[in-house]
Each structure stands twice: as C-alpha cells, then as structure tokens.
C-alpha cells in the first residue's frame, strides 16, 4: 500500500524531472539528454526571474507581517482571554475554510471599491490576510501548552507585562512562531488563486507566470524551473528540520 501511495505521490514529479532533461520540444517522447532548457531558463527568461523576484518579495514581507501581527494577536487572545474569545476564534478559523476563489473575488471587490490600484502591494495585503489565520492558529496552539503559572511566576519575580511577553512568552513560543513564519512563506510563494484576482499589471508572481506560459503549450523551460523548485524545497526542508531540532533543544 505504502509503495502505491508513494508512486502516486512522486511519479508525476519524477516525470517532470526526467522531462526537464529531454531534448524534445513537445515533451511527448524521449529524444535524448540535454541541458538546453536550463540554459534557456537561466539566460533567456527574464520574465520568469521577474516573477520569481516578485514572489520572493511578497512572500518575505507578507509572512513577516503576518507572523508579527498574528503572534501578537495570539498572545492577546491567550493571555487576556476575552469573553468574546469564541467569537474571535470563529473569525480566525473562517478564512481557513472559505474557498480561495471566494477570498480572491472578495478581495478584488474590496480593492476595486476602495480604488486601490492592483499591484504587488495588493498581493502583499491579500497574502498577509490569509497567512494571519495560520499564524494565530499555530502560535495559539503553542501557547495553550504553557502552564499559566509561568506567567504568574514571571510577574512575581518582577516582570512587567511587556517584559513577560518579551522574556518568557515569545522565547517559549519561538518554535511555533518560526513554524508559522515558514508556513506563511510557503503558502504565499505558491498561492495562485487569490493572487490571480488581486495581481495588477507588472506584478506577476512566479505561479502566475508559469500559468501563463503553460497556456501556450507545455514548455520544457517550466519543467526545468519546476525541477529546480523541487530541489530547492527538498533542501530547505532538510535544513529546516535541522534548524527546528536546534530550536526545540532548549525546551522542557
């Protein structure tokens, strides 16, 4: 069973990787090994690199913003336990279950009605918005594990609220905060549907660029690009695991 599952999961990717080295333009048959698509990608595809740069900018800034706001929100919700917490909770979960296409349409309507020109900035706002829910969720889950007497101990030992947040809550929640940052980054960098609605001229991200390339037929350059992305993702995952182990080492 496991083998079947693994084949289902990885066969398409394997094909993609293999065909990125295929010298056939149509990609239907194996015509011999070549690296020309990689050459094409690196030397003659400024559009792709433009999209990649845009994606990176949006991902970095939106996940940083979302992590910051989301962490503060989670601490506020957890610490102050307002009576309307259930209501807050629902509002935080809602974006997770609302279909992306609805989110995309609604954000487009919002931006248009507010006369905000569609650009990288609107993509940034949209990505920050949907990442927020995930950040709050992940950080909140981490905070729920703490004994509330830790906060009382910090106060008892002389810490103000701010010092308690800075010296106790944030360091203890750090693995959750980092995890939520990585999650937001991943969500942002490969988001297509929402981005599709809120992107304006000159603000094409990588997923949008790939989509537009595919529309004119399968390009082996996309295969080459995908292979590099898969490789990068694997590398990052491995590094991330090492890093997480290091962070988690300081925990009780």
């Amino acid at each position: 069973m496991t083998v079947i599952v693994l084949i289902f999961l990885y066969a398409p990717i394997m094909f993609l990787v293999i065909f990125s080295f295929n010298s056939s333009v149509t990609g239907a048959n194996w015509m011999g090994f070549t690296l020309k698509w990689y050459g094409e990608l690196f030397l003659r595809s400024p559009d792709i690199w433009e999209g990649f740069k845009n994606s990176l900018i949006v991902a970095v800034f939106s996940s940083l913003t979302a992590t910051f706001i989301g962490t503060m929100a989670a601490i506020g919700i957890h610490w102050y336990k307002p009576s309307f917490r259930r209501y807050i909770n629902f509002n935080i979960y809602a974006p997770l279950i609302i279909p992306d296409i609805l989110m995309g349409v609604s954000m487009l309507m919002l931006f248009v009605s507010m006369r905000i020109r569609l650009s990288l900035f609107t993509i940034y706002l949209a990505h920050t918005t949907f990442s927020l829910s995930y950040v709050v969720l992940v950080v909140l889950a981490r905070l729920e594990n703490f004994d509330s007497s830790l906060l009382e101990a910090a106060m008892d030992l002389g810490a103000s609220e701010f010092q308690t947040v800075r010296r106790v809550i944030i360091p203890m929640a750090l693995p959750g905060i980092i995890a939520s940052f990585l999650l937001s980054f991943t969500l942002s960098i490969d988001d297509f549907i929402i981005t599709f609605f809120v992107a304006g001229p000159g603000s094409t991200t990588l997923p949008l660029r790939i989509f537009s390339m595919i529309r004119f037929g399968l390009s082996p350059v996309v295969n080459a690009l995908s292979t590099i992305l898969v490789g990068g993702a694997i590398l990052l995952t491995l590094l991330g695991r090492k890093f997480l182990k290091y962070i988690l080492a300081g925990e009780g």
Partner: protein
Amino acid sequence: MDKDGAVYSVELENVTKIFDESTVAMKNVSLKVKKGEFFSILGPSGCGKTTTLRIIGGFETPNEGTVRIDGRRVNNLPPNRRPVNMVFQNYALFPHLSVFENIAFPLRLKKMTESEIREKVEYMVELVKLKGQERKFPRQLSGGQKQRVALARALVNEPRVLLLDEPLSSLDAKLRQYMLMELDRIHDEVGITFIYVTHDQAEAMSVSDEIAVMNNGVIEQVGTPPEIYESPANTFVAGFIGETNFFVGKVVDVSSEYLKVETRFGILTCYKDKEAKIGDTVEFMIRPEKVYVTKNYPPQNMNFLRGKVDQLIYLGSHTKYYIMVENTLIRSIKQHTRYWMDESTISWDDEVYVWWNPDDSYLIKVTGG
C-alpha cells in the same frame, strides 16, 4: 521590631474573597505573621489556603479587607511590585532557560551588572546545593532539583516574605522529609518570613513556628504546633491534626479540677480545661498515645473501658490498637521500648482494658444545657 517599625511581616484584616456567588474562598480572615517566622497555613483541599497565599502574593484581589506587608497596605499593588516571592506548586520554572538563567531572571529584570548577577546566583546555587547543575535545563532535573531551583529563584530577589504553595506535594515521601529539613535550614540561613501552605499536618507540625488551621474559608485556630495538637480550638482542628478519640456527654458533677461526664460508655472523668456546670453538654478528647491497652486491671483513678482488640497494626517503632468498645473504635498507640521483653502479649480479639489518666484529656467544647 524592625527599622520601619512594623512587628508583623504580613497582616490580613477581615479579608473576604468571593469568586462567584457560590464560591466563597475566604470569609473574614484575619492573620498576623511575625517577622522571620516559619508560618504554615494548614487545611484540607478547597479550604481557601491557596487563595490566602495568592492574596498575599497579589495574584488575587480581596473583595473586602486589608492586606499589609511590613505594615504597608498593598491591596492595590500588583505581584511584580510586592516584596514577596512565591514558590509555585509545580515549580513554574522557565523551560527555555538554564538553571543559572532561571535564578538570574529577576536580577536581569533589575538590570544588574553581569558580575553582580554572577555573584548573587552563585550564592543561591550554594545555598540550595545545586553546584554543578547551573547549565542544565529544567527538563534535565529531578523533582527535588527543580524544587531547589524554584527556591533559589524566589529567594535571589531578597524578598521580605517567601510564599510556598504546597511545594513538596509532588515529591515522594522520603525526599519530602529531606526537603522539609532543607527548607528549615534555608529558613534559618536567610532569616526572612516563610509562609507555607500545605494539607499535610505532619509537614506543618515539623517545621512551623506557628500554624493557622483553615477550613471552609475560615481560620479555625492559630497557634504553635503543641498548642494546636494539645489544645485544639474545636472538633475540626482536633480531628484534622492527628488521630484522636472524641467523647460527648452531660456533666453530672463538677469539682475544682475535674468534671464527671455521663457518656454512652458510662461516667468518665475529664480535666476541666474550661468552666462548665452540671447539665452542660461537653465534648472532650483523648489522644491515642495517652491511651493504654492492658489485660490487667488499670490503676486507681483512671478512666477505663472494657473492649475487644479489633485491629492491631505493628509499625516497628510503635503499634496501633483499635479496640472495639460499645460499637465504637477507641484508638491507642503504644511506643515500643523493649518489645521482646515486655510487650507483644496482646493479640487480636483479646478482651482488654482501655484506660487513661483524666489529666490527659482535653475539654474541647462546652454547650450550656
């Protein structure tokens, strides 16, 4: 008397704490804790003892009444501005900080220099005997070691009062005994007031200068361990502290020192600890270690009953006897001195005399009749 004139380290005046309509944690509690005392608050779970401690620490605000620390009213001071520190029941060590950094935490907040911090932490590490463990993290420590870190961290700020919330409850019995002696030693060394909350009467008895016995949000009695054990203020205290035998009856005769009381066991004599007149209903008690169990007829002027040995529990240093008299178990404890030579003659189901000296009983309560 301290330099600032206050005799008492902590004073509670008519403090009432209500959590909601149905939960009154403290009813009109008044307490005075002297400077440098090892003061225990003893009571069953849910009696309000932890709430009392949390009110002193500033984690709860009283609905009514005044809290004073060193003579100063602190009702509105948050915990971080009170000169008291707390050792939490589950230690509440910061999991992301090493032993050294846990202890240094309050000092870093005060922005002390690195060398000052090092000096103070090292002194504390020495005091609580944690030398060599400074770089470990809480999860690498045993229960007893965590306890020591929590103590050091609470003491490093040099508080006027140390609050301890059942700090030994999660340790096993042997370690608990040892840590209790350690607490006593540390108390002697630092010389500040300790307020210790516990439900374990043996713990409270063994280290306290004074004990407050609490029940249902009310202080039942405050006194030294012998006072509380020998002259309990009421039936609750008598029953909660150690084992005891209670008797209820009507006074039939009063002399200068004794009362004759008609009980369901017949007429018994008890020492007149309180004034009473003929016809009053009285309640008195006799502690098991003052009750003798013999096969021979007891000496003159003793209270005695006849019964049958129901249970006999040999515990090495002493034996507990449960004697059935008129469908009531009378408890007796016999300390062994020369077991093989003099004792072990009484066994299960033997018919025995249960007797005690009337001077050893204590009159708990007199109700006019």
